[in-house]
């Protein structure tokens, strides 16, 4: 079983992101379970959503406490919310930001993690370009597909097109592709640097 936790703020499509990821996995014939951390939802308030993916029926209903991957939609949460709770040093981490880990104040914290599993992607920027709205969720899923290989970009786009229609679907699909390409390029750079 692969467990993903998504952190963001009310209005950023955190719950939708978990749902889209589960649909992407479903499209690939896998079992998936997405659910929000339920609360009194308010725009801007910290929100957490979960997604589990497995090849067999998922029965547990507990929240994801030891995630295999973490997606952070809003970097202002990094030092306010215990986002890293339960993340092991071989976990995946994708943060939406235009800065690098050092710039986010995480350089030291992430020293023991596997660098090829950690990335920052300017997902809000991609969303602004493609949708004219800073809603980074779909873009991050494109980036996550590239980083983790858990689902394909095609499946993420299929999930986006099931949920949205018209220009919103096109914009989100384009932003997801941008993020996918960005992460691919970053990973190539990282592995080139490692092999040098």
């Amino acid at each position, binding site marked *: 079983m692969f467990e993903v*936790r998504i952190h963001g703020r009310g209005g950023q499509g955190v719950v939708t992101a*978990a*749902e889209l990821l*589960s*649909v992407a996995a*479903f*499209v690939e014939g896998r*079992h*998936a*379970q*997405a*659910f*929000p*951390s*339920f609360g*009194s939802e308010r725009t801007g*308030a*910290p929100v*957490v959503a979960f997604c589990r993916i497995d090849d067999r029926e*998922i*029965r*547990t*209903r*507990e*929240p994801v*406490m030891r995630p295999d991957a973490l997606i952070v939609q809003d970097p202002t949460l990094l030092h*306010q*919310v*215990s*986002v890293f*709770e*339960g993340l092991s040093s071989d976990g995946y981490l994708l943060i939406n930001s235009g800065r690098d880990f050092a710039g986010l104040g995480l350089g030291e914290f992430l020293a023991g993690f596997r660098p090829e599993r950690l990335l920052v992607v300017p997902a809000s920027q991609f969303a602004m370009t493609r949708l004219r709205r800073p809603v980074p969720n779909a873009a991050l899923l494109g980036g996550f597909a590239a980083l983790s290989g858990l689902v394909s970009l095609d499946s993420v786009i299929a999930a986006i097109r099931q949920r949205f229609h018209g220009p919103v679907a096109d914009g989100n699909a384009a932003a997801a592709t941008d993020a996918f390409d960005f992460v691919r390029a970053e990973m190539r750079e990282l592995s080139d640097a490692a092999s040098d």
Partner: protein
Amino acid sequence: MLRQIEGSRAVAETVALCRPEVICAYPISPQTHIVEALSGLVKDGSLHPCEFVNVESEFAAMSVAIGASATGARAYTATASQGLLYMTEAIYNASGLGLPIVMTVANRAIGAPINIWNDHSDAMSQRDCGWIQLYARTNQEAADLHVQAFRIAEELSLPVMVCMDGFVLTHAVERVDLPTQDQVDAFLPPYEPRQVLDPADPVSIGAMVGPEAFTEVRYLAHEKQMQALELIPTVAAEFAQAFGRDSGGLVHPYRTEGADTIVVALGSVLGTIADVVDELRDEGVSIGALGITSFRPFPLDAVRAALSGAKRVVVLERALAVGIGGIVSANVRMALSGLLLHGYTVIAGLGGRTITKVSLRNLFAEAIADALEPLTFLDLDRSLVDRELARMAERRRSGPTAENMLRDVGPIAARVR
């Protein structure tokens, strides 16, 4: 057709396939997505003919359902928590009049303190209202139970509550195999009412009954529930044949064969429990689980049969009978009358408190060591209680309890759960 779908949406689409003719609803979390989706299906014409009635309260919702059902219409509504309490008087009338209304209860705690999260306090408070109560383990079962509920309700002329865990199921997106219209039509014949309010053939429904026959009318209600004990498994078996799925029925034993310890529970927590049972079985621990699907009627014989070989029974319940402890436990013990085994009541998951696998493992270990208190509150923060007790002992005007305790807990936005 297999869909990756929100639980509420799956239930709404399945209810629509049951061709309800009147749906009345008043919004309350976590039920709202269900009737919202149904209102959309009525509006866009995909559920037709059906009248969707927006009412001014839950009391009105159940009253409209009663009126609709009495005129021979297939009637549906959904509610939760305080909404269920607010319609209580009408709920008793629906069952007393023998009207086969189907209602989803998206289980949620009852205030005060106000709490929107999941537990079974709402449905458990109505366990003796004369309705059949079925509890879903998964969203698949929640959807399937509605098809079965209309069949059971209409065959017996008794209303049925389908209880599904609020948020945990209603807001979870997972794989659900939704039936086709043809499949549901073949399984669920058109409603043939036993009594109809019809201007062309006038009757009155709801006579006042004095001591001369009240006991007999009430006894008949009990007898109908006893008939339901026969009908519920029959309908589940027919459903399994038609749809290929094991949904509904009275109870669901899981790895209980030869189990020394059996955990009894209702609803979605059975999934987490099944995972823990598997882990423990792999470690050689003799443990199983019993899911109770039909809480009313309560399947005394089936429960007794499933538990009679065990040495101890742990009843994990998501509601609290203040002043005594367990509600499900009291019923389970009735089923175990005369059997000498250890019985433990565990109150867990109140008001949305997460029931984790770690906590369950520790709990079951304690039970197996027979070190558990007869009544245990899972993951109770005793120090939080003690601090408030100390304040109350210290001075008369100690202030509002909920506010005091929240202040002790501190900010929670930073937490993952």
